């Protein structure tokens, strides 16, 4: 079921909210089970035949986690074995459903063998819920998840606002909220704040993302269909895609955060104005934050720590040490991040390109650090960064992001390379007449408006900052302050603002409920 559908807005959500709060009178456990079943229904709506995959994942991971929790101290080797089996099962399922076709396709292409490739349907949200379970099992083994009951885990693992496309949540930030005495008791502050956040997210998705998509998709298809992509068309495509995916996914994340809040649960942030970042490193801290958090904790750090120890042990210093301890784990991490998005060479290039960006960014930081130290040693003042330099940082960051994102969007590596060549002038500077007709004034106005919103206005959590919009909001309150400050309060004009966002968000569903870009992952 889509958040941006009438069936969800007018049928599922009111029933889920009513049932959840009414059943609380019979006991918290009833509310929890009702919400779990509603969430499974929400998932099954899309393709009922695939619900068993989610159910198996819930049962298997609960029992694996339970045994790890019970035997962690008394039988550590058994607990470790179960952890390995659990992780293998989770990753095996992900590998099978997501990558089998890609691997077989490439094996067939390289070997020249002639065999049929089975069509394996990708279960909805498998990348998201599998990562959540992996984090849970690892947390169990680290002793961070304790005494989880099946009802708590079932709801944690199926909670519909975050089930299909995140934010990817940690056990330790959600289960304690389920255990809170007020969980399931209606608090109108949660409903009001949640509804406001949801409305803004819906508006971003249906009014902005889908409008941009309606212009972007035909232009992208024309560019991919043939002909040399020129510089202006290439950049227009890249900017449009980045704005579309930003409004789409951040809109989705706002909706998820708002919906969870209506049920009294605070989710973590997923976007924090990433397109206002002044470096690629900062961009990646603020784009799809819950995934970055996962990748950092469960991939980058486990890779970087032993490499750091190795560098110390073998006395590898200077740029060689930098290469070993920073560049190597960055490339591996971003390679995995790329293919997490999907099985395709475009995603591989997307990951590696971002690995290169981050490595270069880290190297630049290292150079600046060394220069600062050198100046300090010499007793000279360290010059402050000027406004012009910061503008250049922003522009370079955006150029990197726009370029990388085209490989993320491209339906094939060839398409990605075509647009990349166009963007960077390899196809000449003249405007391709076939693509010129897509320079629609409305499209350009829409993109300009979107860019101004992204550049100047506060993001959703900054608007709602008075009401602690996310579980980890305090970590981000001082980051990425917007040029224009605007805070929501429940005054009549601002309530009317939410009502207008809700009205337009719902009305624009009439154009057709488009799926969220990240549902594909």
């Amino acid at each position, binding site marked *: 079921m889509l958040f941006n559908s009438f069936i969800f807005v007018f049928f599922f959500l009111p029933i889920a909210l009513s049932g959840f709060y009414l059943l609380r009178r019979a006991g918290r456990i009833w509310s929890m089970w009702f919400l779990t079943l509603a969430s499974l229904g929400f998932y099954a709506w899309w393709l009922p035949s695939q619900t068993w995959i989610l159910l198996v994942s819930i049962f298997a991971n609960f029992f694996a986690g339970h045994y790890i929790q019970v035997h962690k101290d008394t039988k550590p080797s058994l607990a470790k074995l179960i952890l390995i089996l659990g992780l293998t099962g989770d990753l095996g399922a992900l590998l099978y459903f997501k990558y089998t076709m890609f691997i077989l396709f490439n094996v067939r292409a390289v070997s020249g063998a002639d065999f049929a490739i089975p069509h394996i349907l990708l279960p909805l949200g498998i990348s998201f819920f599998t990562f959540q379970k992996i984090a849970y099992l690892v947390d169990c083994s680290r002793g961070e998840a304790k005494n989880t009951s099946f009802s708590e885990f079932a709801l944690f693992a199926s909670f519909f606002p975050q089930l299909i496309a995140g934010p990817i949540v940690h056990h330790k930030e959600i289960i304690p909220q389920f255990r809170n005495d007020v969980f399931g008791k209606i608090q109108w502050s949660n409903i*009001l*704040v949640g509804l406001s956040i949801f*409305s803004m997210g819906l508006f971003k998705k249906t009014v902005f993302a889908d409008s941009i998509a309606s212009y972007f998709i035909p232009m992208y298809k024309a560019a991919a269909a043939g002909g040399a992509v020129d510089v202006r068309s290439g950049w227009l495509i890249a900017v449009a895609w980045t704005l579309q995916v930003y409004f789409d996914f951040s809109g989705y994340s706002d909706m998820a955060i708002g919906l969870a809040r209506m049920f009294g649960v605070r989710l973590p942030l997923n976007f924090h104005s990433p397109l206002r970042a002044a470096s690629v490193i900062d961009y990646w801290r603020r784009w799809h934050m819950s995934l970055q958090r996962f990748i950092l904790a469960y991939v980058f750090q486990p890779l970087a720590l032993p490499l750091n120890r190795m560098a110390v042990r073998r006395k590898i210093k200077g740029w060689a040490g930098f290469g070993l301890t920073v560049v190597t784990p960055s490339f591996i991490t971003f390679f995995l991040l790329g293919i997490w998005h999907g099985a395709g060479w475009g995603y591989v290039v997307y990951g590696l390109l971002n690995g290169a960006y981050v490595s270069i960014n880290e190297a630049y930081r290292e150079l600046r650090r060394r220069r600062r130290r050198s100046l300090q040693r010499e007793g000279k003042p360290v010059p402050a960064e000027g406004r012009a330099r910061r503008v250049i940082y922003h522009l370079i960051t955006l150029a990197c992001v726009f370029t990388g994102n085209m490989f993320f969007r491209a339906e094939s590596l060839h398409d990605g390379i075509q647009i990349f060549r166009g963007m960077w002038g390899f196809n000449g500077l003249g405007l391709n007449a076939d693509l010129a007709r897509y320079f629609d004034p409305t499209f350009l106005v829409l993109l300009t408006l979107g860019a101004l919103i992204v550049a100047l206005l506060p993001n959703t959590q900054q608007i709602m900052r008075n009401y602690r919009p996310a579980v980890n909001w305090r970590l981000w309150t001082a980051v990425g302050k917007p040029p224009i400050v605007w805070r929501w309060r429940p005054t009549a004009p601002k309530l009317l603002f939410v*009502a207008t966002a809700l*009205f337009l968000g719902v*009305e624009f569903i009439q154009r057709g409920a488009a799926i969220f870009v990240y549902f594909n992952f």
Partner: protein
Amino acid sequence: MRSDMHKWHLLRRTVFILVAAVALAVVVTFLPDKPYERFQLLDTTIYARARWSFERMHFDPRPIDVAIVGDSKAVLGLRSPEIERRLASDGKRALVVNMALEGDGRNQQWILVQELLKTKKPKVIVLAINDRPYPWGHDSFRYIAPASEIWREAFHGLHDTKKNLMFLPFRQLKLFAASLLPGPFGLQERFDAARYAAQPDDPTQPHRNRKGELIDFAETRPRALLLREARDNAAEFDRRSKLPERVRAITDADDRVFTDLIVHAAHQHGAEVLFVYQPAFHRPAPIVNRAYYQALGPVQDDVDLADRDGLYYDWVHLNTAGAMILSDRVADSLSKMLP
């Protein structure tokens, strides 16, 4: 949440948002629009011919003596040139215009008749009927109907009320925006005579569809194929909503509500209504509401065509041979009604 906001304040504010959102939706439905632009909203759909009908009524100075409204069976089965020819042979000069549109639903036909009566003085309106009235409205209604007509449908509690009312604010917003900036919305404020002239008065001539396939309604189909199609699609005629019978009496009344309106408006403008029933292949069903239609005007029942496979293009539509027979019969009925 701040301490100054206790439970009832919060509840009131939540309700305020929901009520304000609904109120906005209602207010927006009263935004002004232009009928010509409403009809253009169908340009990229299979109902694109509705625009031609509008232009014929409003921008073409020729009179309309006989207007045909109905579904796709009427589009293919009632050939206006043949009806004119036959009438002429009877010494009756009349301009016949087929404004029928693919798809069922009397509500859309009422919108066309309303537009027709604004500018023309037809003598007869030919209204195609089925053996069982279609319980739902037409898909195009929400695009071309004035807001007041969509509210009227809601007042009667008809089936499509919910989806049409939901769509109305979006449509009005779009039309209002288009009235300020027509270009980006692909709508034209002014009549394009060249475009209009390029379209045939009779859409049943051989042509190529979007896939490039030749469509020739003169073709016939093997009887076995027609029988299979008729059998496979028989349930389509009897499809009804799953609502209780008492509720259906209200919700399924599209045909009766809008037929009444059409007939009443026609009579007010001095026009008569001729009801024409053409059966689907191998479905010699009687007209369930015959008495009702007969009380409003003459009924031409062509049920005898039902088993003549040589006259059918597919399981529900007549081919050219069948259309010629039906058109001649309609012309004969019209001949008695026209002065």
